[in-house]
């Protein structure tokens, strides 16, 4: 995609981003549920993946989501200090920071990965945060990756 | 930093050692042996290969010092070699003290170069560890440090007094009889260790040391007291580093950025105060005022240092300002320099 095409896409709203959202069960996923229950609609761009805790998402899994063609990846966990598993969201934040650095070396915009903190009661904020993220991704344009690369073979001993 | 508590120490007896002027054949040694207050200067070789740059600096030092150091890739910046520049300076009538670091040469190169230097007539040597190459203009260079400055002193002593190469082989025709010097930084850390390090250098083989620039008289007096108590000053000629400040900025730079340098507030204040009545735009007048004050302070310091027990001389380091050495030496009452027959 060249720059001109991207602008055209954004203007015509024909670019519908694919955003993967790793959401922790206790907070972010519950917030999404609350939004749904409250009939607050949010972008169909967001593909939610439920995790027991954002600490479960490794840097590798975040990166693989982008490799497979996601235009953006968000990791959404509990508010700082309230993680159900104490430090899971802190570790997740750390990993997102690391992935953002890697994205720069790879040639992708670091803004395509984001850490979001939200509590179970924050249905409206869930929508607000993710709407904002989707807008950011729309501005960045589609991922330049083909989405066709990936592991074809792994063998291992340990 | 915790204070380190060292046990008491006295220098081992060295009454069997030859008097300094008999160990070697250097004018500086004769000055020191005669009990004269020695004056040494410093010449920084050029970055290029023009001998005239050495000669013009040498002329500024002529007749105001007993000998002058020729630095060796100082601050790890490549310059004309100390030995070559030393020989050019010698032809102008100034006795060289060549410097050699452990950073750039292994023991083979050191011994070879020093045999050569001696053959060319050079008689004084300062043995240094050397500034780390990371602070210079070739930071990617491999450093050598085959031996350290202490081992270097010992090697030179054994070459001279036992006519042996470092490997133990005899040197045909006898070893080079240098006056052997080391460097000392009274203000580096660990502070309590520094007098002991000086003692160790004397034991290793140093005939004399030159200290880093001294601006803090109080601290220096304390250091000299410990040095004298240990008996070091009787076995080692201690020549104290002094240097005129060029500006208040230079004073602050030395205080803040040079490892192991302390510059008391009183001196910073004097340097700042001397331009208080001069317009900040009037650069020539400000510079002249600073330089005049810098020289005044240097002269006062030399006079104070002469009174300290254990001090054998001063080493005037007028960095890139060799013109200042003569007026300083003159006003401090150090001229004319003694003429001592070989």
């Amino acid at each position, binding site marked *: 995609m060249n720059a001109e095409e991207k602008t055209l896409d954004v203007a015509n709203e024909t670019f519908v981003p694919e955003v993967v959202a790793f959401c922790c069960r206790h907070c972010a996923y519950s917030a999404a549920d609350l939004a749904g229950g409250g009939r607050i609609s949010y972008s169909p761009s967001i593909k939610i993946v439920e995790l027991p805790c954002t600490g479960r998402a490794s840097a590798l899994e975040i990166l693989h989501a982008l490799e497979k063609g996601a235009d953006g990846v968000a990791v959404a966990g509990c508010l700082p200090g309230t993680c159900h598993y104490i430090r899971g969201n802190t570790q997740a934040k750390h990993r997102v920071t690391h992935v953002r650095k890697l994205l720069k070396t790879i040639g992708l915009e670091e803004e395509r990965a984001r850490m979001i903190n939200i509590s179970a009661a924050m249905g409206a904020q869930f929508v607000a945060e993710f709407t904002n993220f989707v807008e950011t991704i729309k501005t960045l344009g589609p991922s330049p990756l083909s989405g066709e690369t990936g592991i074809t073979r792994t063998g*291992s001993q340990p | 930093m915790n204070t380190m508590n060292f046990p008491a120490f006295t220098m081992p007896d060295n009454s069997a050692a030859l008097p300094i002027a008999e160990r070697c054949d250097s004018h500086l040694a004769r000055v020191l042996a005669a009990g004269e207050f020695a004056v040494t200067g410093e010449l920084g070789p050029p970055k290029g290969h023009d001998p005239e740059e050495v000669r013009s600096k040498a002329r500024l030092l002529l007749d105001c010092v007993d000998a002058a150091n020729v630095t060796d890739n100082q601050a790890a910046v490549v310059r004309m070699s100390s030995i070559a520049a030393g020989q050019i300076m010698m032809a102008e009538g100034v006795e060289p003290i060549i410097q050699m670091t452990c950073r750039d040469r292994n023991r083979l190169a050191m011994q070879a170069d020093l045999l050569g230097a001696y053959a060319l007539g050079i008689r004084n040597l300062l043995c240094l560890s050397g500034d*780390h190459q990371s602070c210079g203009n070739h930071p990617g260079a491999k450093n050598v440090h085959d031996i350290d400055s202490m081992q270097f002193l010992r090697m030179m002593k054994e070459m001279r007094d036992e006519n042996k190469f470092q490997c133990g082989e005899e040197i045909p025709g006898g070893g080079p009889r240098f006056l052997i010097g080391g460097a000392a930084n009274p203000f580096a850390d660990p502070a309590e260790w520094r007098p002991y390090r000086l003692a160790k250098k004397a034991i*290793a083989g140093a005939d004399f040391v030159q200290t880093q620039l001294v601006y803090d008289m109080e601290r220096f007096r304390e250091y000299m007291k410990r040095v004298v108590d240990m008996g070091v000053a009787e076995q080692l000629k201690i020549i104290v580093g002094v240097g005129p400040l060029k500006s208040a900025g230079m004073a602050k730079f030395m205080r803040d950025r040079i490892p192991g340098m302390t510059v008391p507030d009183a001196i910073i204040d004097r340097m700042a105060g001397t331009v208080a009545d001069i317009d900040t735009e009037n650069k020539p007048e400000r510079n002249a005022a600073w330089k005049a004050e810098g020289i005044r302070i240097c002269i006062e310091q030399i006079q104070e240092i002469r009174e300290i027990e254990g001090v054998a001389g001063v080493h005037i380091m007028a960095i890139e300002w060799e013109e200042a050495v003569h007026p300083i030496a003159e006003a401090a009452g150090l001229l004319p320099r003694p003429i001592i027959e070989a």
Partner: protein
Amino acid sequence: MIVAEQKPLNEIKAMLEGCNKVLAVGCGTCVAVCFAGGRQEVGLLSASLRMSTDIDGAAVDIDETIVQRQCEKEYNAPLEAELEQYDAILSLGCGVGVQSLAQQFPGKRILPALNTKFMGYPAEHGIWEDRCQGCGNCVLHLTGGVCPVSRCPKSLFNGPCGGSQGGICEVDQETECAWNVICENQLRLGLFDEMMEIHPAKDWSSARDGGHRRIVREDVRIPDEEKA
């Protein structure tokens, strides 16, 4: 343990020029422990390379695998059967691992993804410090357990130089003056006499300087008659 770190991505990418299909091989021992070449690092590096070369318009196919210890040929042997399809092997092993693969598979180019730095100490999780340079003649009993060869940038043997300030080395504000630590240790351990001793010039022939080094242990070697 051996401590290594990954080369910058661009440097590794440059090595892959001309390759279409590469096998990344990690190692489960030292470099896994210092998070440079273990399973996760193989995954992150391989994905980064696939994505980056894809963006460049010339995607390189990177497969991933890991062996227990890349310096031991028994662990590497199973790889042989699959090497045909690859243009090169990208090793995430230490320098020894890279060379072992090169020796074992001489028909294949082995590319080093890591820079092996030193034998080091994990000062804290995520920080490793040089502790040993393999000089071949250990004098730690004399220096209160601190190595002057690896920890002093000038490898001094007789006390700190004039650049030691506040316990910090003149070369780097983050580096302790090793000799400051040695002095403290020597005093505490009653080694003052050692401090005043002129430690003689080191014999560097036991280090890299003496030539390529090799250790032969006859008590451990399998006698010729028992070899297959």
